[in-house]
């Protein structure tokens, strides 16, 4: 994919140079690059090596995916301000490296579950940007038919289990998904994502205990963006070392702004988990936006802090620098950016023209095969028999 783009980009070069350049590009796209990442902090386990091997092709894929996530979230911001998206909208920009690194280390047969900050998981698990945007705008072409909204995006085909509104409620669900993997003898893990705020929920410890008791293949990923809505981590947690809070369960702390560090650590964690059971990962990351679009994000942290993150630790810039220093032409990256912008903009425009879900969908999927039971409407004498989808295939 990156190779084709690179060759395409070379067509503008002077002819006699062309063959030589192609050969060089062909060789370098797959050539291994060794990158040193921040050493991992560990708890009750030996740290994986912090020298990560990658190549231009892989980095280009990372760049494309993270850039797509960034553009999507920025588009969601603009659409929210333009009132196409209503209600609560929690954006993921700044945290792209966490999800991108995770996806690079697992397969589509592994499962992911997360909180309400879930727009990017839908796309990384195979959903289209259009279906995401349509869902945010409440259209029937959306990922959950316009019924779920921002906080309730699911993708069964991609083994993405949502999309959960209540803080921490997804953690026991994730342990349950892992239980099912083990029950069926599948060599798959469940990546259970939650935030530093959710790390103080009691149900997390209940899930940790059971996962530990039964050696469930669950990877608890704490996306520590340092603020639980308006409360800083040190004001809500006696111990903000979230990777140690599994106690008897081993933990790894990762630089969550570095996609290579994340990928390496998650691959290590998956191998560990399939053999031994649960493991906790703490991703040191940051969200540029406030908790949601209703939160300015500046009353409890300084603009200097946010800007410092953007200039020093932005995950996309880091990959960009790596690509440029490994021989990739800045023009090629610009091309990718243009393509992604186009895809996102087109998806937004297409979503706007979507249709509202029809009125009878109010009752759709209340029950599986209700066998003729009727439900009452608002006014007396109104009865409806709810319909349901016999298959979930879209």
């Amino acid at each position, binding site marked *: 994919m990156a190779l084709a783009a690179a060759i395409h980009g070379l067509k503008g070069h002077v002819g006699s140079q062309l063959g030589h350049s192609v050969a060089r590009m062909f060789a370098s796209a797959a050539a291994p690059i060794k990158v040193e990442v921040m050493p991992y902090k560990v708890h009750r386990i030996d740290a994986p090596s912090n020298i990560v091997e990658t190549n231009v092709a892989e980095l280009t894929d990372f760049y494309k995916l993270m850039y797509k996530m960034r553009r999507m979230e920025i588009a969601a911001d603009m659409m929210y301000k333009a009132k196409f998206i*209503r209600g609560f909208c929690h954006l993921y920009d700044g945290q792209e490296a966490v999800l991108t690194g995770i996806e690079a280390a697992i397969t589509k047969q592994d499962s992911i579950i997360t909180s309400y900050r879930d727009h990017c998981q839908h796309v990384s698990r195979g959903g289209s940007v259009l279906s995401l945007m349509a869902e945010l705008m409440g259209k029937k072409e959306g990922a959950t038919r316009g019924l779920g909204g921002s906080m309730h995006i699911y993708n069964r085909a991609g083994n993405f289990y949502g999309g959960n509104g209540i803080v921490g409620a997804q953690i026991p669900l994730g342990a349950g998904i892992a239980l099912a993997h083990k029950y069926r003898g599948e060599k798959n893990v469940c990546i259970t994502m939650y935030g530093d705020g959710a790390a103080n929920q009691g149900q997390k410890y209940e899930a940790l205990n059971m996962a530990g008791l039964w050696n469930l293949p669950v990877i608890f990923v704490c996306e520590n963006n340092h603020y639980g809505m308006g409360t800083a981590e040190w004001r809500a947690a006696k111990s903000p070392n979230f990777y140690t809070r599994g106690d008897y369960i081993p933990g790894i702390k990762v630089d969550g702004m570095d996609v290579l560090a994340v990928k390496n650590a998650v691959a290590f964690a998956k191998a560990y988990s399939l053999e031994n059971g649960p493991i906790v990962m703490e991703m040191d990351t940051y969200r540029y936006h406030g908790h949601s679009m209703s939160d300015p994000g500046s009353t409890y942290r300084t603009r200097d802090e946010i800007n410092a993150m953007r200039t020093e630790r932005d995950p996309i810039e880091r990959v960009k620098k790596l690509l440029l220093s490994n021989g990739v032409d800045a023009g090629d990256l610009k091309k990718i950016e243009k393509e992604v912008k186009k895809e996102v903009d087109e998806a937004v425009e297409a979503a706007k023209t979507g249709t509202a879900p029809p009125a009878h969908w109010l009752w759709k999927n209340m029950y599986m095969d209700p066998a003729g039971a009727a439900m009452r409407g*608002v006014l007396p004498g109104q009865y409806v028999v709810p319909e349901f989808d016999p298959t979930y295939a879209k």
Partner: protein
Amino acid sequence: MLASRNARVAAGHRAAAVPGLRTVPAVRSGRRALAAAKAQKKEIMMWEALREAIDEEMERDPTVCVMGEDVGHYGGSYKCTLGLYKKYGDMRVLDTPICENGFTGMGVGAAMTGLRPIVEGMNMGFLLLAFNQISNNCGMLHYTSGGQFKTPLVIRGPGGVGRQLGAEHSQRLESYFQSIPGVQLVACSTVRNAKALLKAAIRSDNPIIFFEHVLLYNVKGEAGDKDEVACLERAEVVREGADVSIFTYSRMRYVVMQAVNELVKKGYNPEVIDLISLKPFDMETISKSIKKTRKAIIVEECMKTGGIGASLSAVINESLFNELDHEVIRLSSQDVPTAYAYELEAATIVQSSQVVEAVERIVGGRVPAAV
């Protein structure tokens, strides 16, 4: 509101025939009239009124404290505790981590010793995580301890359907709490009653679950002064009438009044009662109204199945059957999770046009379809 009205009547003032109309102060109580005129009440928003109530009660009684998520330094997600931590300190305005079961339980424990915590649920739906603490400990302790311990706490927060907040944040769950023995349920609806009721709830020795509504925080109105404390068990007569009694609460009050505007133009004269006390029901006001109009409509945001209206309907049918000329009509929201899409969300809850239709049906004398 009625408490202060009754107080004014007792003091010899003429009370307004319809609540809301200004009264002409009696000449012989000149000093009081002057004071009343001087205390020019400005309009404030409901969140400010709630904040005033909390502030005044915390100042009056050092055992009153607040605990909840982002209530302190952040100022409260709906600003109901804005700036209070600066005045009262971090211990009295306690920022908790996100652990509803834990901090609600802590609130109950503190209340058992005599403190008066106000536990804030950022959304009443989140308090489902604390249901055991609310039911078993908060509700039952006074009884099961043989009267030794009381739990004078207030559990407050916004519930109800907002603007496209999604299913998990748009729950109307007054009904989930109503069967808990030992708790009182109160729903405020106007700026005035919000402040007066919250003050009463804080002073009450019983555990009060205080329902606010996510869409009412910016409603404007006049609030009472620091001595205006409402009666927690009294319903509010919003509009006196003769054709039909419409019982409602919280945001549905505004939906009903919107329907009433239209109904009045069509020549109807409905009586509107804001229940205020969802548990126990103010049977005195309710039965007085039904005996007058002989027809009852309940308009609520709760679900059809097992809602507050379901309980009220049963009570009315059982105890006022012979006073009714028509079966109770109950308008409730549908038994579905609140969808995100605007149109479906609107179809889930009661709209004012449906209230109009219900009144026309019950008063117009048409034979209704079998329920």
